[in-house]
Protein backbone atom coordinates (compact mmCIF):
# COMPACT_ATOMS: atom_id res chain seq x y z
CA UNK A 1 0.00 0.00 0.00
CA UNK A 2 1.67 3.17 -1.14
CA UNK A 3 0.16 6.58 -0.99
CA UNK A 4 0.34 7.04 -4.74
CA UNK A 5 -2.25 4.35 -5.33
CA UNK A 6 -4.60 5.04 -2.48
CA UNK A 7 -7.77 6.62 -3.74
CA UNK A 8 -8.24 9.54 -1.40
CA UNK A 9 -4.92 11.18 -2.00
CA UNK A 10 -4.70 11.10 -5.76
CA UNK A 11 -4.33 14.83 -6.11
CA UNK A 12 -1.67 15.30 -3.52
CA UNK A 13 1.93 14.14 -3.63
CA UNK A 14 3.06 11.68 -0.97
CA UNK A 15 4.90 13.44 1.78
CA UNK A 16 8.25 12.42 3.18
CA UNK A 17 8.01 12.10 6.90
CA UNK A 18 10.88 11.49 9.27
CA UNK A 19 9.93 9.54 12.32
CA UNK A 20 11.96 8.62 15.33
CA UNK A 21 12.64 4.93 14.92
CA UNK A 22 15.67 3.99 17.03
CA UNK A 23 16.17 5.26 20.55
CA UNK A 24 19.60 6.42 21.68
CA UNK A 25 20.09 3.27 23.77
CA UNK A 26 19.35 1.03 20.80
CA UNK A 27 21.69 2.99 18.53
CA UNK A 28 24.60 2.98 20.97
CA UNK A 29 24.26 -0.68 21.91
CA UNK A 30 23.87 -1.58 18.23
CA UNK A 31 27.18 -0.01 17.20
CA UNK A 32 29.03 -1.29 20.26
CA UNK A 33 27.72 -4.71 19.32
CA UNK A 34 29.14 -4.30 15.82
CA UNK A 35 32.50 -3.47 17.36
CA UNK A 36 32.42 -6.35 19.86
CA UNK A 37 31.21 -8.99 17.41
CA UNK A 38 33.86 -8.01 14.86
CA UNK A 39 36.68 -8.38 17.36
CA UNK A 40 35.13 -11.51 18.88
CA UNK A 41 34.85 -13.17 15.48
CA UNK A 42 38.40 -12.40 14.39
CA UNK A 43 40.03 -13.26 17.71
CA UNK A 44 37.81 -16.35 17.88
CA UNK A 45 39.14 -17.56 14.54
CA UNK A 46 42.67 -17.01 15.88
CA UNK A 47 41.79 -19.28 18.82
CA UNK A 48 40.22 -21.85 16.50
CA UNK A 49 43.44 -21.93 14.45
CA UNK A 50 45.34 -23.28 17.47
CA UNK A 51 43.34 -26.50 17.20
CA UNK A 52 41.39 -26.57 13.94
CA UNK A 53 39.24 -29.60 14.69
CA UNK A 54 35.71 -29.91 16.09
CA UNK A 55 34.36 -32.83 18.07
CA UNK A 56 31.15 -33.88 19.77
CA UNK A 57 31.03 -35.01 23.39
CA UNK A 58 33.04 -34.49 26.57
CA UNK A 59 36.52 -35.02 25.12
CA UNK A 60 38.32 -34.71 21.80
CA UNK A 61 41.95 -34.20 20.95
CA UNK A 62 43.75 -34.79 17.70
CA UNK A 63 45.00 -38.08 19.13
CA UNK A 64 43.44 -40.98 17.27
CA UNK A 65 40.84 -42.33 17.65
CA UNK A 66 38.91 -39.24 18.73
CA UNK A 67 36.68 -38.58 15.73
CA UNK A 68 36.70 -34.96 14.56
CA UNK A 69 33.81 -34.16 12.26
CA UNK A 70 35.37 -30.94 11.03
CA UNK A 71 39.05 -30.32 10.39
CA UNK A 72 40.78 -27.53 8.50
CA UNK A 73 44.35 -28.60 7.85
CA UNK A 74 47.31 -28.37 5.54
CA UNK A 75 48.62 -31.44 3.73
CA UNK A 76 51.93 -31.86 1.98
CA UNK A 77 51.51 -31.61 -1.79
CA UNK A 78 54.80 -32.31 -3.51
CA UNK A 79 57.12 -29.44 -2.63
CA UNK A 80 54.22 -27.28 -1.60
CA UNK A 81 51.12 -27.78 0.50
CA UNK A 82 47.40 -27.72 0.04
CA UNK A 83 44.61 -26.67 2.36
CA UNK A 84 42.02 -29.33 3.02
CA UNK A 85 38.70 -28.86 4.79
CA UNK A 86 37.13 -32.08 6.00
CA UNK A 87 33.49 -32.17 7.06
CA UNK A 88 32.41 -35.66 8.06
CA UNK A 89 33.25 -37.95 5.16
CA UNK A 90 33.66 -35.09 2.67
CA UNK A 91 36.96 -33.48 1.76
CA UNK A 92 37.35 -30.18 -0.05
CA UNK A 93 40.54 -28.61 -1.34
CA UNK A 94 40.48 -25.08 0.02
CA UNK A 95 44.06 -23.94 -0.60
CA UNK A 96 44.47 -20.18 -0.37
CA UNK A 97 41.63 -19.62 2.07
CA UNK A 98 41.18 -22.51 4.49
CA UNK A 99 43.91 -24.85 5.71
CA UNK A 100 46.77 -23.20 3.89
CA UNK A 101 46.93 -19.56 2.92
CA UNK A 102 49.52 -16.93 2.17
CA UNK A 103 51.32 -15.01 4.87
CA UNK A 104 53.89 -12.51 3.62
CA UNK A 105 53.57 -14.09 0.20
CA UNK A 106 54.31 -17.59 1.42
CA UNK A 107 51.82 -20.43 1.67
CA UNK A 108 51.54 -21.26 5.39
CA UNK A 109 49.55 -23.91 7.25
CA UNK A 110 46.74 -22.11 9.07
CA UNK A 111 43.03 -22.90 9.28
CA UNK A 112 41.64 -19.41 8.75
CA UNK A 113 43.64 -16.90 6.69
CA UNK A 114 45.58 -14.04 8.27
CA UNK A 115 43.16 -11.38 7.02
CA UNK A 116 40.42 -12.95 9.15
CA UNK A 117 42.32 -13.25 12.43
CA UNK A 118 43.52 -10.96 15.21
CA UNK A 119 46.44 -10.76 15.31
CA UNK A 120 47.07 -11.61 11.66
CA UNK A 121 49.97 -13.88 12.62
CA UNK A 122 49.64 -16.97 14.80
CA UNK A 123 49.48 -15.91 18.45
CA UNK A 124 46.99 -17.74 20.63
CA UNK A 125 47.77 -15.81 23.84
CA UNK A 126 46.99 -12.47 22.21
CA UNK A 127 43.92 -13.87 20.47
CA UNK A 128 42.58 -15.03 23.83
CA UNK A 129 43.31 -11.70 25.49
CA UNK A 130 41.31 -9.84 22.81
CA UNK A 131 38.55 -12.41 22.80
CA UNK A 132 37.90 -12.31 26.53
CA UNK A 133 38.18 -8.53 26.74
CA UNK A 134 35.54 -8.08 24.05
CA UNK A 135 33.48 -10.91 25.53
CA UNK A 136 33.16 -8.87 28.73
CA UNK A 137 32.43 -5.73 26.73
CA UNK A 138 29.79 -7.63 24.74
CA UNK A 139 28.15 -9.10 27.85
CA UNK A 140 27.93 -5.73 29.60
CA UNK A 141 26.60 -4.06 26.45
CA UNK A 142 24.07 -6.87 26.02
CA UNK A 143 22.97 -6.53 29.62
CA UNK A 144 22.36 -2.79 29.18
CA UNK A 145 20.37 -3.51 26.01
CA UNK A 146 18.25 -6.20 27.66
CA UNK A 147 17.53 -4.01 30.64
CA UNK A 148 16.58 -1.09 28.39
CA UNK A 149 14.48 -3.28 26.12
CA UNK A 150 12.41 -4.57 28.99
CA UNK A 151 12.03 -1.37 30.97
CA UNK A 152 11.21 0.80 27.93
CA UNK A 153 8.91 -1.91 26.52
CA UNK A 154 10.98 -1.80 23.30
CA UNK A 155 10.90 -5.59 23.09
CA UNK A 156 7.17 -5.90 23.57
CA UNK A 157 6.30 -2.94 21.35
CA UNK A 158 8.75 -3.41 18.49
CA UNK A 159 10.12 -6.95 18.49
CA UNK A 160 7.42 -9.30 19.75
CA UNK A 161 5.55 -10.64 16.71
CA UNK A 162 1.76 -10.54 16.98
CA UNK A 163 -0.25 -13.69 16.57
CA UNK A 164 -1.52 -12.49 13.21
CA UNK A 165 2.03 -11.98 12.01
CA UNK A 166 2.90 -15.58 12.80
CA UNK A 167 0.20 -17.28 10.74
CA UNK A 168 1.64 -19.42 7.95
CA UNK A 169 -0.34 -17.42 5.41
CA UNK A 170 1.10 -14.10 6.54
CA UNK A 171 4.62 -15.47 6.75
CA UNK A 172 4.38 -17.06 3.30
CA UNK A 173 3.21 -13.71 1.92
CA UNK A 174 6.11 -11.85 3.53
CA UNK A 175 8.65 -14.37 2.34
CA UNK A 176 7.29 -14.03 -1.20
CA UNK A 177 7.45 -10.24 -0.97
CA UNK A 178 11.03 -10.34 0.36
CA UNK A 179 12.05 -12.75 -2.38
CA UNK A 180 10.84 -10.19 -4.92
CA UNK A 181 12.75 -7.53 -2.97
CA UNK A 182 9.52 -5.67 -2.29
CA UNK A 183 9.67 -4.09 1.12
CA UNK A 184 6.93 -2.45 3.18
CA UNK A 185 6.41 1.18 2.37
CA UNK A 186 4.52 4.09 3.85
CA UNK A 187 2.74 3.51 7.13
CA UNK A 188 3.61 -0.18 7.06
CA UNK A 189 7.29 0.68 7.19
CA UNK A 190 6.84 2.27 10.59
CA UNK A 191 7.03 -1.15 12.16
CA UNK A 192 9.35 -4.06 11.67
CA UNK A 193 7.81 -6.72 9.45
CA UNK A 194 7.43 -10.19 10.92
CA UNK A 195 10.53 -11.61 9.21
CA UNK A 196 12.57 -8.80 10.70
CA UNK A 197 11.07 -9.41 14.11
CA UNK A 198 11.79 -13.12 13.93
CA UNK A 199 15.36 -12.53 12.75
CA UNK A 200 16.11 -9.98 15.47
CA UNK A 201 14.49 -12.06 18.20
CA UNK A 202 16.32 -15.16 16.97
CA UNK A 203 19.69 -13.45 17.03
CA UNK A 204 19.21 -11.38 20.18
CA UNK A 205 17.45 -13.92 22.32
CA UNK A 206 18.75 -17.25 21.01
CA UNK A 207 22.04 -17.04 19.09
CA UNK A 208 23.87 -14.37 21.11
CA UNK A 209 22.92 -15.85 24.52
CA UNK A 210 23.95 -19.25 23.12
CA UNK A 211 27.38 -17.82 22.31
CA UNK A 212 27.81 -16.68 25.91
CA UNK A 213 26.61 -19.95 27.42
CA UNK A 214 28.66 -22.21 25.14
CA UNK A 215 31.66 -19.95 25.69
CA UNK A 216 31.32 -20.26 29.44
CA UNK A 217 30.93 -24.03 29.12
CA UNK A 218 34.44 -24.20 27.69
CA UNK A 219 35.88 -22.64 30.85
CA UNK A 220 37.17 -25.24 33.35
CA UNK A 221 36.65 -22.77 36.19
CA UNK A 222 33.10 -22.09 35.15
CA UNK A 223 32.44 -25.82 34.85
CA UNK A 224 33.08 -26.15 38.57
CA UNK A 225 30.65 -23.29 39.26
CA UNK A 226 27.81 -24.42 36.94
CA UNK A 227 28.48 -28.07 36.00
CA UNK A 228 24.94 -28.42 34.63
CA UNK A 229 25.98 -26.38 31.60
CA UNK A 230 28.09 -29.36 30.53
CA UNK A 231 24.94 -31.48 30.55
CA UNK A 232 22.90 -28.92 28.67
CA UNK A 233 25.37 -28.88 25.77
CA UNK A 234 26.53 -32.48 25.98
CA UNK A 235 30.11 -31.80 27.03
CA UNK A 236 32.90 -29.28 26.62
CA UNK A 237 33.78 -30.31 23.08
CA UNK A 238 30.12 -30.21 22.03
CA UNK A 239 29.91 -26.73 23.51
CA UNK A 240 32.97 -25.71 21.49
CA UNK A 241 31.30 -27.05 18.35
CA UNK A 242 28.01 -25.28 19.08
CA UNK A 243 29.99 -22.09 19.76
CA UNK A 244 31.52 -22.39 16.28
CA UNK A 245 28.24 -23.22 14.51
CA UNK A 246 26.37 -20.44 16.31
CA UNK A 247 29.10 -17.98 15.37
CA UNK A 248 28.69 -19.10 11.75
CA UNK A 249 24.93 -18.50 11.97
CA UNK A 250 25.54 -15.00 13.35
CA UNK A 251 27.90 -14.31 10.46
CA UNK A 252 25.17 -15.53 8.09
CA UNK A 253 22.67 -13.20 9.79
CA UNK A 254 25.05 -10.26 9.47
CA UNK A 255 25.56 -10.96 5.77
CA UNK A 256 21.79 -11.01 5.14
CA UNK A 257 21.27 -8.02 7.44
CA UNK A 258 23.84 -5.93 5.58
CA UNK A 259 22.43 -6.96 2.19
CA UNK A 260 18.95 -5.96 3.31
CA UNK A 261 20.24 -2.64 4.60
CA UNK A 262 21.93 -2.03 1.25
CA UNK A 263 18.94 -2.85 -0.95
CA UNK A 264 16.15 -1.38 1.16
CA UNK A 265 17.48 2.16 1.23
CA UNK A 266 21.00 2.28 2.55
CA UNK A 267 21.10 5.98 3.52
CA UNK A 268 17.71 5.93 5.18
CA UNK A 269 18.71 2.84 7.16
CA UNK A 270 22.09 4.22 8.14
CA UNK A 271 20.62 7.57 9.15
CA UNK A 272 18.05 5.86 11.33
CA UNK A 273 20.71 3.84 13.17
CA UNK A 274 22.88 6.94 13.60
CA UNK A 275 20.44 9.81 14.22
CA UNK A 276 17.38 7.74 15.06
CA UNK A 277 15.24 9.21 12.24
CA UNK A 278 13.80 7.07 9.45
CA UNK A 279 11.99 8.50 6.46
CA UNK A 280 8.75 7.17 5.09
CA UNK A 281 6.42 8.47 2.42
CA UNK A 282 2.87 8.92 3.58
CA UNK A 283 -0.38 10.42 2.43
CA UNK A 284 -0.54 14.03 3.40
CA UNK A 285 -2.28 14.05 6.72
CA UNK A 286 -1.72 15.88 9.97
CA UNK A 287 1.58 14.62 11.32
CA UNK A 288 1.19 12.84 14.59
CA UNK A 289 3.15 13.64 17.68
CA UNK A 290 6.89 13.28 17.66
CA UNK A 291 7.28 13.59 13.93
CA UNK A 292 9.23 16.04 11.90
CA UNK A 293 7.78 16.92 8.53
CA UNK A 294 9.91 17.93 5.64
Amino acid at each position, binding site marked *: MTSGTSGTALNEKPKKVLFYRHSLAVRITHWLNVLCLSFLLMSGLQIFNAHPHLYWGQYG*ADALPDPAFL*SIEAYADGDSMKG*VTTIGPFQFTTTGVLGASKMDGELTPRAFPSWLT*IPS*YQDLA*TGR*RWHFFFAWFFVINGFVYMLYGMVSRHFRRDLLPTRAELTPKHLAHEIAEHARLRFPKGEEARRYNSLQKLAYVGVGFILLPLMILTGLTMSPGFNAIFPWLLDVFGG*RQSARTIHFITASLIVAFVVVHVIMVLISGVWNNLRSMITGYYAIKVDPAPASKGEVSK
Partner: protein
Amino acid sequence: MSIDLTRRRFLIGSGVAATGILTGCDAMVRSPSVNAVLEKGEWLSMKAQRLLLGGQQLAREYTEADMSPVFKANGTQMPETDVYKRLIDTNFADWRLEVGGMVKTPKSFSMADLKAMPSRTQITRHDCVEGWSAIGKWTGVPLGLVLEQVGLAPGARYAVFHCADDYEQSLDGSGLYYESIDLVDAWHPQTILSYGMNGKDLEIAHGAPLRLRVERQLGYKHAKYLMRIELVDSFKNIGSGKGGFWEDRGYEWYAGI
Protein backbone atom coordinates in the same frame (compact mmCIF):
# COMPACT_ATOMS: atom_id res chain seq x y z
CA MET B 1 49.44 -37.08 7.27
CA SER B 2 48.60 -33.51 7.93
CA ILE B 3 51.27 -30.93 8.57
CA ASP B 4 51.22 -29.91 12.18
CA LEU B 5 52.55 -26.64 13.28
CA THR B 6 54.64 -27.35 16.31
CA ARG B 7 53.11 -26.43 19.61
CA ARG B 8 55.83 -23.84 20.02
CA ARG B 9 54.94 -22.18 16.76
CA PHE B 10 51.31 -22.13 17.79
CA LEU B 11 51.69 -20.98 21.33
CA ILE B 12 54.38 -18.41 20.84
CA GLY B 13 53.54 -15.69 18.35
CA SER B 14 55.43 -16.59 15.23
CA GLY B 15 58.30 -14.42 14.18
CA VAL B 16 56.94 -14.12 10.66
CA ALA B 17 55.04 -10.94 11.38
CA ALA B 18 58.10 -9.31 12.88
CA THR B 19 59.71 -9.26 9.47
CA GLY B 20 56.56 -8.63 7.50
CA ILE B 21 54.39 -5.59 7.20
CA LEU B 22 52.16 -5.08 10.17
CA THR B 23 48.55 -4.25 9.53
CA GLY B 24 46.86 -1.54 11.54
CA CYS B 25 45.34 -4.19 13.75
CA ASP B 26 48.67 -5.84 14.45
CA ALA B 27 50.26 -2.54 15.40
CA MET B 28 47.43 -2.07 17.89
CA VAL B 29 47.88 -5.64 19.12
CA ARG B 30 51.49 -4.87 20.00
CA SER B 31 50.85 -1.57 21.73
CA PRO B 32 51.64 -1.84 25.46
CA SER B 33 48.88 0.58 26.43
CA VAL B 34 46.29 -1.40 24.47
CA ASN B 35 47.48 -4.55 26.19
CA ALA B 36 47.24 -2.91 29.58
CA VAL B 37 43.55 -2.21 28.91
CA LEU B 38 42.90 -5.69 27.55
CA GLU B 39 44.48 -7.27 30.59
CA LYS B 40 41.69 -5.72 32.63
CA GLY B 41 39.51 -8.35 31.02
CA GLU B 42 41.72 -11.09 32.45
CA TRP B 43 41.55 -9.49 35.86
CA LEU B 44 37.75 -9.36 35.58
CA SER B 45 37.57 -13.03 34.55
CA MET B 46 39.59 -14.10 37.56
CA LYS B 47 37.67 -11.91 40.00
CA ALA B 48 34.33 -13.11 38.65
CA GLN B 49 35.29 -16.77 38.83
CA ARG B 50 36.83 -16.43 42.26
CA LEU B 51 33.69 -14.67 43.48
CA LEU B 52 31.52 -17.50 42.18
CA LEU B 53 34.06 -20.12 43.26
CA GLY B 54 34.12 -18.73 46.76
CA GLY B 55 33.61 -22.20 48.13
CA GLN B 56 35.70 -25.15 47.14
CA GLN B 57 33.48 -26.37 44.32
CA LEU B 58 34.89 -29.44 42.63
CA ALA B 59 35.67 -29.89 38.99
CA ARG B 60 33.43 -32.52 37.45
CA GLU B 61 34.59 -36.08 37.95
CA TYR B 62 33.78 -38.63 35.27
CA THR B 63 33.41 -42.41 35.13
CA GLU B 64 35.81 -44.89 33.55
CA ALA B 65 33.41 -45.19 30.62
CA ASP B 66 33.95 -41.50 29.84
CA MET B 67 37.73 -41.74 29.58
CA SER B 68 39.60 -40.86 26.37
CA PRO B 69 40.80 -44.04 24.62
CA VAL B 70 44.15 -42.30 24.14
CA PHE B 71 45.19 -39.40 26.33
CA LYS B 72 47.04 -36.93 24.15
CA ALA B 73 50.53 -36.10 25.40
CA ASN B 74 51.51 -32.49 24.87
CA GLY B 75 54.24 -30.01 25.73
CA THR B 76 57.52 -31.63 26.65
CA GLN B 77 57.27 -35.38 26.18
CA MET B 78 60.90 -36.32 26.81
CA PRO B 79 62.92 -33.81 28.85
CA GLU B 80 66.43 -33.25 27.52
CA THR B 81 68.09 -31.92 30.65
CA ASP B 82 71.04 -33.81 32.17
CA VAL B 83 69.28 -33.93 35.51
CA TYR B 84 66.33 -35.70 33.99
CA LYS B 85 68.43 -38.06 31.87
CA ARG B 86 70.17 -39.23 35.04
CA LEU B 87 66.78 -39.79 36.68
CA ILE B 88 65.66 -41.97 33.78
CA ASP B 89 68.88 -44.01 33.98
CA THR B 90 68.09 -44.94 37.57
CA ASN B 91 64.38 -45.31 36.95
CA PHE B 92 63.73 -42.31 39.24
CA ALA B 93 65.15 -44.13 42.28
CA ASP B 94 67.10 -41.03 43.38
CA TRP B 95 64.32 -38.57 42.60
CA ARG B 96 63.24 -36.38 45.52
CA LEU B 97 60.64 -33.65 45.74
CA GLU B 98 62.07 -30.65 47.60
CA VAL B 99 59.54 -28.44 49.33
CA GLY B 100 60.95 -25.17 50.63
CA GLY B 101 60.86 -21.41 50.47
CA MET B 102 58.48 -19.74 52.92
CA VAL B 103 57.80 -22.85 54.98
CA LYS B 104 58.46 -23.67 58.61
CA THR B 105 60.36 -26.89 57.99
CA PRO B 106 61.68 -27.52 54.48
CA LYS B 107 61.45 -31.19 53.58
CA SER B 108 62.42 -33.54 50.85
CA PHE B 109 60.05 -36.35 49.87
CA SER B 110 60.91 -39.61 48.13
CA MET B 111 58.33 -41.31 45.95
CA ALA B 112 57.84 -43.87 48.74
CA ASP B 113 57.12 -41.03 51.18
CA LEU B 114 54.48 -39.59 48.86
CA LYS B 115 52.91 -42.97 48.16
CA ALA B 116 52.73 -43.69 51.90
CA MET B 117 50.51 -40.62 52.36
CA PRO B 118 46.74 -40.73 51.81
CA SER B 119 45.98 -40.66 48.10
CA ARG B 120 43.16 -39.37 45.97
CA THR B 121 42.07 -40.80 42.62
CA GLN B 122 39.99 -38.68 40.27
CA ILE B 123 38.78 -39.01 36.70
CA THR B 124 38.84 -35.52 35.30
CA ARG B 125 38.92 -33.64 32.05
CA HIS B 126 42.14 -32.00 30.93
CA ASP B 127 41.49 -28.88 28.85
CA CYS B 128 44.31 -27.56 26.74
CA VAL B 129 44.48 -23.84 26.04
CA GLU B 130 44.56 -24.81 22.36
CA GLY B 131 41.01 -26.12 22.60
CA TRP B 132 41.17 -29.90 22.90
CA SER B 133 40.15 -32.02 25.90
CA ALA B 134 41.06 -35.47 27.18
CA ILE B 135 39.68 -37.39 30.13
CA GLY B 136 42.01 -39.44 32.31
CA LYS B 137 42.31 -40.98 35.75
CA TRP B 138 44.83 -39.45 38.12
CA THR B 139 46.14 -40.76 41.42
CA GLY B 140 48.26 -38.77 43.80
CA VAL B 141 48.67 -37.09 47.13
CA PRO B 142 46.67 -33.93 47.79
CA LEU B 143 49.03 -30.96 47.73
CA GLY B 144 47.41 -29.71 50.95
CA LEU B 145 48.71 -32.75 52.85
CA VAL B 146 52.26 -32.03 51.69
CA LEU B 147 51.91 -28.38 52.66
CA GLU B 148 50.66 -29.40 56.11
CA GLN B 149 53.83 -31.42 56.63
CA VAL B 150 56.12 -28.47 55.93
CA GLY B 151 53.88 -25.80 57.45
CA LEU B 152 53.50 -22.46 55.70
CA ALA B 153 55.42 -19.47 57.00
CA PRO B 154 53.39 -16.28 57.50
CA GLY B 155 53.13 -14.32 54.27
CA ALA B 156 53.38 -17.29 51.90
CA ARG B 157 50.90 -16.70 49.06
CA TYR B 158 51.89 -18.87 46.13
CA ALA B 159 53.24 -22.34 45.49
CA VAL B 160 55.76 -22.33 42.64
CA PHE B 161 56.46 -25.62 40.87
CA HIS B 162 59.93 -26.06 39.40
CA CYS B 163 60.24 -28.70 36.71
CA ALA B 164 62.98 -30.81 35.15
CA ASP B 165 62.13 -30.02 31.55
CA ASP B 166 63.54 -27.14 29.57
CA TYR B 167 60.74 -26.44 27.18
CA GLU B 168 62.95 -23.91 25.48
CA GLN B 169 66.54 -25.03 25.47
CA SER B 170 68.70 -22.41 27.09
CA LEU B 171 72.09 -22.18 28.76
CA ASP B 172 70.95 -20.04 31.67
CA GLY B 173 67.95 -22.13 32.66
CA SER B 174 65.48 -19.46 31.53
CA GLY B 175 63.75 -22.08 29.40
CA LEU B 176 62.98 -24.39 32.32
CA TYR B 177 59.30 -25.03 32.81
CA TYR B 178 57.70 -23.70 35.95
CA GLU B 179 54.25 -22.83 37.15
CA SER B 180 52.53 -21.27 40.13
CA ILE B 181 49.15 -21.35 41.84
CA ASP B 182 47.81 -19.42 44.79
CA LEU B 183 46.71 -20.90 48.08
CA VAL B 184 43.04 -21.08 47.06
CA ASP B 185 43.96 -23.70 44.49
CA ALA B 186 46.80 -25.16 46.57
CA TRP B 187 44.37 -26.21 49.32
CA HIS B 188 41.66 -27.36 46.92
CA PRO B 189 40.86 -31.05 47.51
CA GLN B 190 41.33 -31.96 43.83
CA THR B 191 44.74 -30.31 43.60
CA ILE B 192 47.01 -33.32 43.77
CA LEU B 193 50.62 -34.25 43.08
CA SER B 194 49.95 -37.11 40.74
CA TYR B 195 52.20 -40.16 40.39
CA GLY B 196 49.64 -42.47 38.78
CA MET B 197 47.65 -42.16 35.58
CA ASN B 198 44.94 -44.47 34.23
CA GLY B 199 45.82 -47.08 36.86
CA LYS B 200 49.57 -47.19 36.08
CA ASP B 201 52.64 -45.24 37.09
CA LEU B 202 52.78 -41.88 35.36
CA GLU B 203 54.52 -42.21 32.00
CA ILE B 204 57.39 -39.97 30.93
CA ALA B 205 55.28 -38.33 28.21
CA HIS B 206 52.78 -37.30 30.87
CA GLY B 207 55.28 -35.98 33.42
CA ALA B 208 56.91 -38.86 35.32
CA PRO B 209 57.56 -39.21 38.10
CA LEU B 210 55.25 -36.49 39.44
CA ARG B 211 52.99 -33.82 37.98
CA LEU B 212 50.57 -31.28 39.32
CA ARG B 213 46.83 -31.58 38.74
CA VAL B 214 44.93 -28.35 39.29
CA GLU B 215 41.61 -29.33 37.84
CA ARG B 216 39.79 -26.03 37.57
CA GLN B 217 42.40 -24.52 35.29
CA LEU B 218 43.80 -25.14 31.80
CA GLY B 219 46.44 -27.70 30.93
CA TYR B 220 49.52 -25.50 31.04
CA LYS B 221 49.04 -25.01 34.80
CA HIS B 222 49.44 -28.79 35.31
CA ALA B 223 53.24 -28.72 35.53
CA LYS B 224 55.00 -32.01 34.72
CA TYR B 225 58.36 -33.44 35.85
CA LEU B 226 58.16 -31.80 39.28
CA MET B 227 61.45 -31.35 41.16
CA ARG B 228 60.81 -28.64 43.70
CA ILE B 229 57.94 -26.71 45.24
CA GLU B 230 58.78 -23.27 46.51
CA LEU B 231 56.43 -21.24 48.68
CA VAL B 232 56.74 -17.51 47.98
CA ASP B 233 54.99 -14.25 48.73
CA SER B 234 55.50 -13.06 45.15
CA PHE B 235 56.74 -14.61 41.91
CA LYS B 236 58.13 -11.30 40.69
CA ASN B 237 61.73 -12.51 40.82
CA ILE B 238 61.18 -15.91 39.26
CA GLY B 239 61.61 -16.31 35.51
CA SER B 240 60.29 -13.17 33.83
CA GLY B 241 58.07 -12.54 36.82
CA LYS B 242 54.68 -13.57 35.44
CA GLY B 243 54.33 -16.78 37.43
CA GLY B 244 54.98 -19.44 34.83
CA PHE B 245 56.69 -20.49 31.63
CA TRP B 246 53.71 -19.69 29.40
CA GLU B 247 52.71 -16.71 31.51
CA ASP B 248 56.14 -15.24 30.73
CA ARG B 249 55.21 -15.71 27.08
CA GLY B 250 51.88 -13.88 27.21
CA TYR B 251 49.37 -16.36 28.61
CA GLU B 252 47.15 -15.54 31.59
CA TRP B 253 48.34 -16.52 35.04
CA TYR B 254 44.80 -17.39 36.02
CA ALA B 255 43.84 -20.07 33.53
CA GLY B 256 40.28 -20.80 34.63
CA ILE B 257 38.89 -19.67 31.29
